[in-house]
């Protein structure tokens, strides 16, 4: 099909997502169960804090269009990190997200020759499609695949650090399931990436210039309708010669303050970042979803 009018094409594509048989069901507001939309991961995909889940942004089901927005702070020993972003969920099937990240090097910036308070920043455009299954209801777990295009717009600086470039694409697949019989959610993700520290320190390096396969996972226990606690792990590539990159861990508590607001607090261990070890601290996020 040739598309002369992009808007029409998008509408046709959306129509193709509509139910094929019977009468069309009305578009409606309505909700997922609390917390089952996930929070917003650092790179903007819905899921845990460090890793995507096979869930779609927003509170809507296959009969609606959802929306979420988040603000995230990470304060570790020597660095400050902020990100903010938005995501839309189309019929609980497709997620499109945008997130902007800022990573402030504080005093370390001076030591690295970048200047005190030098900040790396990055834009991430993400797309995810849930290809099968359901987080809560079906016996088949939710299964999704996604891409994240990352661009940090600081080519000269990340090359000086030893990276091969300032843009890259991550590809991932996630499998997620809420086991109601135990109130436990498990999620696993496989990611192909060449990003250094998510891409904030560029892509590729002297040790490894290509995409490598990395594994990530979350486990959460739902204590009540509104509260879940859990932990996450994210294996990381180690591409740069000058700075070792460690795997990430966190332990979190997420609280659905209302139907539309979820607050998350976590203790995060991000290991060595840009030559400075033991970057541990707190992760805070406020997310709103409709």
């Amino acid at each position: 099909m040739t598309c002369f009018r992009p808007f029409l094409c998008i509408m046709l594509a959306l129509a193709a997502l509509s139910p094929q048989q019977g009468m069309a069901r009305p578009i409606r507001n309505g909700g997922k169960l609390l917390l089952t939309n996930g929070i917003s991961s650092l790179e903007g995909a819905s899921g845990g804090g460090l890793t995507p889940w096979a869930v779609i942004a927003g509170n809507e089901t296959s009969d609606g269009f959802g929306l979420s927005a988040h603000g995230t702070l990470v304060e570790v020993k020597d660095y400050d990190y902020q990100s903010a972003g938005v995501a839309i969920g189309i019929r609980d099937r497709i997620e499109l997200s945008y997130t902007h990240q800022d990573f402030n090097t504080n005093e370390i910036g001076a030591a690295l020759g970048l200047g005190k308070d030098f900040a790396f920043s990055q834009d991430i455009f993400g797309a995810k499609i849930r290809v099968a299954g359901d987080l809560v209801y079906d016996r088949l777990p939710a299964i999704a695949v996604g891409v994240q295009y990352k661009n940090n717009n600081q080519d000269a600086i990340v090359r000086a650090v030893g990276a091969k470039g300032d843009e890259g694409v991550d590809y991932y697949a996630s499998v997620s399931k809420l086991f109601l019989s135990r109130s436990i959610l498990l999620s696993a993700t496989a990611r192909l990436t060449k990003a250094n520290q998510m891409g904030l320190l560029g892509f590729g390096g002297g040790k490894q210039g290509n995409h490598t396969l990395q594994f990530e996972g979350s486990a959460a226990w739902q204590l009540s309708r509104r509260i879940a606690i859990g932990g996450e792990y994210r294996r990381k590539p180690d591409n740069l010669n000058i700075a070792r990159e460690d795997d990430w861990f966190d332990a979190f508590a997420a609280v659905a303050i209302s139907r539309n607001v979820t607050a998350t607090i976590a203790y995060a261990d991000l290991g060595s970042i840009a030559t400075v070890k033991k970057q541990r601290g707190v992760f805070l996020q406020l997310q709103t979803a409709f």
Partner: protein
Amino acid sequence: MSIILSLLLLQAPYALPGEAAVDPYVADNHHAGAEPFTGDGMAKAFGGQDGIRRIVDRFVAINFADPVIGEIFANHDKVRLKRTLFEQFCFILNAGCTYSGRDMASAHKDLGVQKADMNRLVETFQRAMSEEGVSFQAQNRFLSKLAPMRDDVIEK
């Protein structure tokens, strides 16, 4: 006379006074849509048959009054719904009942239930169970038996 009587019996097995007639069917525990729990742990967690009856009565009352999904219930036979829901829950929770109602697909045919309605129903059910003091973990264990029925309940 006996023909009418047998027809009545076939139309609504074990019907209570006040129930409207439904198309004939043969009662079968498999219509409950899930295998019962083993042991008496879940029955106890729900307060036995008395607790289950109070939860069902409250659950049905909340649903009929609900601003979102109330209209799905509006023309429903409340007497029959309370009885069959009680039997279904009691059977699955292994609290000593048999289920005489219809299977889930037949019982929900043409109701136009959407996924969001189903989630709303889970929330009203959580409310009814919480009011009766059922722990969140036990609530979820029971929901894990009911959740796979969604495909038979919602409008495709």
